Each structure stands twice: as structure tokens, then as C-alpha cells.
């Protein structure tokens, strides 16, 4: 079975990393939540940048 590996995204403003594997449980985002499944109006818990201000970390 093909499992898509978890990815990491970085906030352009404050460098905060969103790791899909860990999620942001304290923000109500469960571990394993894919970045695309986070609501579009979600903002960075550190600096309030938009979801669109996160970029994929290679």
C-alpha cells in the first residue's frame, strides 16, 4: 500500500513549522492532519499569518 509521507510547512513570517505528523493539538488540529485539510481561514498560531503564507519545506 502506498502511504503518502507526512510533509512539513514553514511560516514565511515567523519560521514556525507545521508538521503534518504532529499537527497542532493545542490549536485543535489533530496529529496526522494534512495541510490541505486545514481550514483556509486558519492562521499561524505564532504570528497570525495566513495559511497561504506557509510554504512546503523540501
Amino acid at each position: 500500500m502506498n502511504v503518502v509521507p507526512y510533509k512539513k510547512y514553514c511560516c514565511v513570517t515567523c519560521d514556525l513549522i507545521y508538521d503534518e505528523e504532529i499537527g497542532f493539538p493545542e490549536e485543535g488540529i489533530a496529529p496526522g492532519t494534512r495541510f490541505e485539510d486545514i481550514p483556509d481561514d486558519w492562521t499561524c498560531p505564532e504570528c497570525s499569518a495566513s495559511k497561504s503564507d506557509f510554504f512546503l519545506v523540501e
Partner: protein
Amino acid sequence: MKPIVVIGSGHAGVTLIREVRQLDLKTPVILITKDKANTYYKPNLSKAISMGKSPDDLVMKCAEQVELDLGVQIVSNTVVESIDTVNGSLKINGAEGQCSIAYKDLVFAVGAAPIELPINGDAADQVLSVNTLDEYRLFRSEIKDKTNVLIIGAGFVGIEFASDLSNSDYQVDVVDMGDWPLQRSLPEELGSSIRNSFKEDTLTWHFGASVVTVNRQGEKLEVTLSTGKKLMVDVVLSAVGIKPNIQLAKEANISVNRGIVVDECLRTSHKNIYALGDCAELSGYTLPFIAPATFSAKALAKTLLGTVSELSIPNLAVAVKISTCPTVVCPSLTQGGVWDVDGESNDLIARYKNSEGQLLGFALTGKAISQKVSLLKECLSPVLTKQVELVS
């Protein structure tokens, strides 16, 4: 085409330009800054040691990269000397000498400066404050191979520095006029939790006190407090708050109060001149912290590109990085409420409520910080409706 000119390369200025570029690639944008224009995240200055980062490590993008990524012309190490609001131009002075730039729109993103306390003594000028990466560089070089740091102020910045330094083998003294840490933002019970979470052998509190004199004593600084107590330390860091940089605006006859006065669309008293971030004042409030500047940048970008947009800021909570006692504060803009404290040991919830029992703000410590999201939803929307008188 005349450019949009932004003064200031901090979070507010750079975020504004990024938001402009999301909507429009054609309008020329010039960023003028007295700084180098390397971007960094200012809140990290008070936690970099724990993050294992040197001042250089904090740089996220160099100025050249910002120019490329955002399609902006950066004029760094340059001050704006004066603004001609009638003809829409400004005079700058930098490495390439003096010149004049015409603008379509002008944006003040000039930030704020640390408040300087009246301190006496032959080493009063040795008191440091940190509001820029360069100031932080100086601070890190001053504390290198030293042990004792005295911090003036137990507010957001002072307490984060206290946490960062006391975690890193420094002996820290914290001096504050109030009775507990973060006194303006949370009640005594939570203040005590924070206070008691620091280890006594690394940090000493001096509440109800101020610094009167700082004198040189050989390699050390002798600090005398208002209580008469004398302390021998290596470095004194002042973190007692910031005041908006209003001088340039004032000289151009732009309406200023504590900050540069703006309306809900971030317009100043003068046509085509705007302000956002730490330098701006809306409805009698200055709007410090990162998040309000981010929301302001989004609204102002739209306004600059022709769709006049009002600023709307949702309830926001600020995390205070205290390693021994995680703390979250949602400050209330409204006064006159009453604190209601709930919880056990260091895991406390403080609700700030008005006479009708509505939630105006809150503060959380320890494990209770997990309540942030649900409490933000309970909060009344911030009220920023007092009309600002604009001089046209």
C-alpha cells in the same frame, strides 16, 4: 508610474509589500529603511539563546533576496529627512547622498523605540535595550562570558528575556515597579504561578522597585534600586516598553498623538499617506504585537490597490515564552472588568469579564493554555469603533 513608498523594513513594512505583491505585480514599490533590510522575526530576539540561535542565525532573508522575492527596490541604511505632503515627495539621505523621491502613496511602517528611563550614575549610558537585531547583536556580545544580568521590567519582553537567560546559566535579577510579572495583563494568582516557576538559584525578583543609579565599579556595574538595595551585575537590560516613532510624521504636520493617528482604513490625516504596525494609533489605541500588523498589512494592501478596506482584527492571544510556565494572554481593550480565576496549582484560567459577565479577555498558565482556542471563541469581538477626528 509613481511608486508606493514604504518607510521601515520591519514586520509591518515587509508584510505589507508581500500582500501588495499577492494582488499586483506592476505597481513599483520602494522600501526605505535605516536598517540593513535583512528580515528576522523580532519576537525571537527574546528567546534566541534557548533556540540555540546566534544573532546571524535569526536572519531569515537577506535584503537582496527580499528584493528578488517581492519585486521591490530597497534603499537601505537610509533615513528620510523630510516629507513634502503637498507635492507628494520625500527627501532621503543615505550611502548615495541626498535625493528626492516622488510617491503615489506613502506608508509609515516606522515602528517604535524603547522607552528610556531616567537613570543616574556614571554608567547610565551602559543600560541596553533590544528592539532591533543590531541592538540584540550588541547585547549578546556584552553578555558573552559574563554571569549576572539585571533586567528592568517584568512585562512581555522582560519576562521572556528572564526565561531565556536564566535557562542558559545566567544569574538574573528582575526589577519591576509592580507587584508581580505581567501585572498589566493578568491577575496576581497567575503572576504568582509565573513568579514561583522560576528557580530561586537562577533568578531574583525585585518587585515594587525601580533602578535609580548605575555606576561603574571596575569590571562590574553597581545598580542601586529605589529600595536602597545595591546589586553588582555585568549587564543591565531595560525592557520597559516601547513608544511609537512619530517624529518624522509630526514634522510633516501629519496628525499624531501617542502614535501616528489613523482611521479604520489606516489613513493618516493626509491624503495618500498611511501608517501601520507599532507606529500607528487607531481609536486611541496603539496596536503592538505581530498579529495586528499582519491584519493591517492585508487590509492596507487592498486599499493601496484601489479597494478601500477597513481593518478588522479578531480576538488574538499572545503566547509568552516562559519555559517553566507556559503562558497565553488575550489582552482586553476594554477596562473596568473583573478577573475570575479558575484551576489548580499552576494550571490556571483567568477570565476578564464585564458587569454583564461577558468575556473581554483572558490569561492562561501551565496546562490551561490548551483552552486558548475555545476561550477565543467565547470572547466578545474587540471594539475599535470610537471615531477618530481626521484633519483634512
